[in-house]
């Protein structure tokens, strides 16, 4: 079986899996990193949202062979370390607004929110309702409104 090497949450990993296995399963089933959740497997629910080299991606749609040794995958578990703190400001905002209900969608929601704030900041503007409407992550518990509030608060501290 081919060996694949890349970085996850700041560490070099090497896995022995067929080329076409999607990154989500490499993370969850092979590496035991269970923060990214399965909710559809076809890149629509966004429960698996993680970052690749700082950008928002959905690992359920990335064959592991697409990763290069220098590629850095960040899952919710590795998010605090990207800012060198116990908790990322977005996670803190989630706590402050008590966003979580069942929690299943929330790792993906937070990773998507962080990426949104970075994109908007790169455009040198503040988050709008349209930006928030553009978050595609499903929350079947219906926590959407608190998510909106938390993203705005998290953005202020990022």
């Amino acid at each position: 079986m081919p060996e694949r090497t890349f970085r996850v949450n700041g560490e070099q990993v090497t896995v022995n899996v067929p080329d076409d296995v999607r990154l989500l399963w490499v993370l969850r089933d092979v590496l035991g990193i269970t923060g990214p959740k399965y909710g559809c497997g076809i890149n629509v629910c966004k429960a698996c949202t993680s970052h690749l080299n700082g950008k928002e991606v959905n690992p359920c749609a990335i064959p592991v062979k697409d990763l290069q040794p220098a590629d850095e995958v960040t899952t919710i578990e590795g998010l605090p370390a990207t800012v060198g703190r116990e908790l990322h400001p977005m996670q803190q905002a989630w706590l402050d607004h008590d966003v979580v209900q069942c929690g299943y969608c929330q790792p993906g929601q937070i990773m998507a929110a962080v990426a949104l704030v970075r994109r908007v900041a790169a455009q040198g503007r503040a988050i709008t309702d349209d930006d928030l409407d553009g978050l595609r992550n499903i929350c079947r518990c219906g926590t959407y409104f608190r998510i909106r509030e938390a993203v705005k608060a998290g953005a202020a501290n990022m």
Partner: protein
Amino acid sequence: MRESIGRRRFLGYVLAAPTLVTAAEIGLRPTVAAASSAEFQLPSPGITDIVDLNDLMTVAAAPTSGLISVGVGQDGMVSFALPRAEVGQGITTSTAMLIAEELSVPLDRVRVTLADARPELVFNQLTGGSNTTFATYTPIRVAAAIARRRLLEAAAIELGSAVTDLSVRDGMIVDRSGRSIGFGALADKAASVRIEQVSVELTPRESFTVIGKPHSRIDALDAVTGRKKFAMDLDVPDAKPTMVCRAPTLNGKVGSVANLAEVRAMAGVTDVVVISTGVAVRAETFGQCIDAVRALRVSWKPGTAAGKSDEIVRRELERAELSLGLPPLTPTVEGKFTFYFRGNSALETNCAIADVRADRAEIWSALKSPIVAQRTIAAKLGLAPSRVAVHVVQGGGSFGRKLFFDAALEAAEVSQKIGKPVRLMWHRADDARQGRVHPMATSRVRVSYLGGTVLGYEQRHTSVATDLGHGLGEIITATAAQLPVGDIGFSETFFLLSQTMPYNFGATSQLLSETDKGFNTGSMRNVYSPDVACARELIVDQLAARMRKDPYRFRRDFLRDDRSRAVLDKVAEVGGWGRALPAGTAQGIAFHAEYKSVSAALVEIDCRPETVNRPIREGVAGPRVTRAVFAVDVGLAVNPRGLEAQMMGGISDGIALALTSSLHLRDGYFLEASWDNYFYTRQWNTPLALQIIVMPSTSEQPGGAGELGVAPAMAAVACAYGRATGTMPTSFPINHGTLSFEPKPTVPPVPPSPTDGLSHAR
């Protein structure tokens, strides 16, 4: 002696254990018996005035001997195993709050876990009907209060002071001179070597410092850091990923498989086996399971809904509808409403881990009826129930799904057949197409009136049969005989018990008729109420118009009590009822009472074409609920912040049910196969302004809340839509007639995993 126990005193136990363990009987209610009947002396009494579902579930529980216990450890931690399932509704947090209140211990020193299946609890380990807080409120506090008393007594000996000179603060016991001793140091000294019965008083409501104050969820940190473990995240040795290849039609069974050997030889695949629901594949990763499921060539036998469509079921419902009888001579308002099938999938799909050996089995899953699951799985495996350990895991949502244990039963079957542990998960496409649905239903309402008086209200609800065979049904059948409902089945009893008539509408008759058991059904954050209430509230708007009254004033005039009027007034006031809005936009208002709670919703909706037709990629835009105001009175809100969260979720559901979410049945299968087909509320459908008002406590007892918000929210959105467009909607969701997606193939049953993820990086 029971006779000597006055008001506010409760009996409980100190159990024999090395460290302190105290207990109370679950189902224990306050000794004040007369209060609840007095509360319901209202005009035109219906069955719910005498006893409602919560009473029934609580009464059903009373004779059981199951104790729930609070333990104090040498580390000073207080522990409690809750015999319920946490699926997002926040009951672990509210439970920890009850214990923190009675024990004066900080919330973070209370560890609440979920109890394994405990058959001796009989009816008392079922999470449903928004009953948890209602049924556990008293016994949990009694157990905690006994622990407090024992700790005080032990501390008195240690510190050489009288109990009356001691106080409890932050998990410490302090005497007058300021000397203190921690709970941990007292854990063994306060323990007992034999069971002792003890009576205690509970903290009176006026002295609460924890209950009734907003608290954030105790599991929030775990959830936002990805540490919270759901069933599929558990590390059970050798429990490898497993998925099932399912039929193209609902509940179709395997005829034959053409390429078993070929699929067994695929990369990563360890086992392929035919089971009662399809062909199970076990592999090193779920990705390889998906590939193997797609590679299987199976011939299928027809399913249980062969050839059926929405239209065929609609005609079945028409035939099953009970007659309203001859129209009265007085004027009437009448309407008939259709509610299409809806999926009750949670975001976590059906899943379970099973490790079945020759003489025992172990199951891990989010289960709201673990005792029934244990019994059913044991029967299927040919084991004694005592040989099947059932662990209840925190669930990623439920909405009715987790009352059933479809995945646990399947996982047990696969594990037994292949002789290996399995981590079985349904693909989203399976969860959408073969998973349980909220049944399609119609509701006909007729109201007769004369002048300003409403003479009678009749509602005939006709529904595809709802499967209540998860234990809730057993509670009803076990208790129904004692109720004045005559000789009817438990669905009908359940319907009567869950439907209240909140208005003074004279003679009321609400009846249920069911048909067609060919579907996999279940409740969906309530069984009947959202549809029944939506139909009722739309007719109330019509009636108000007929009597030339404002919808809010009309409701206010006909509501039966002050508590109900208070929530209605609140949303009207905060929401600015009647404020001027542009054409194509409107307000809607609705009221609903259930679970001894009352609630009202006011929404504003924008139905202007530029809003309805705003472009959304792979989603449905539709009218936008721009604002929602919600008021709720649950009697006593244990955790107002959690209660608000539940109402917020209910509003998201209500919007979906009214506007966008349904399943389309064609040729014996549901077309929807994922979230890009099934349009649950998304950010672009979420109100831009939302206010939830938790009313001050009006009772000594908490009412139910988990499902409460859906009905009034759905009804208010429907009413607002009717007022904005000038046409009362009669079919739900309003966009059901338009198929907004390209259906995915049914063979293979699951879609391919995409490969273009990198190109979407942003």
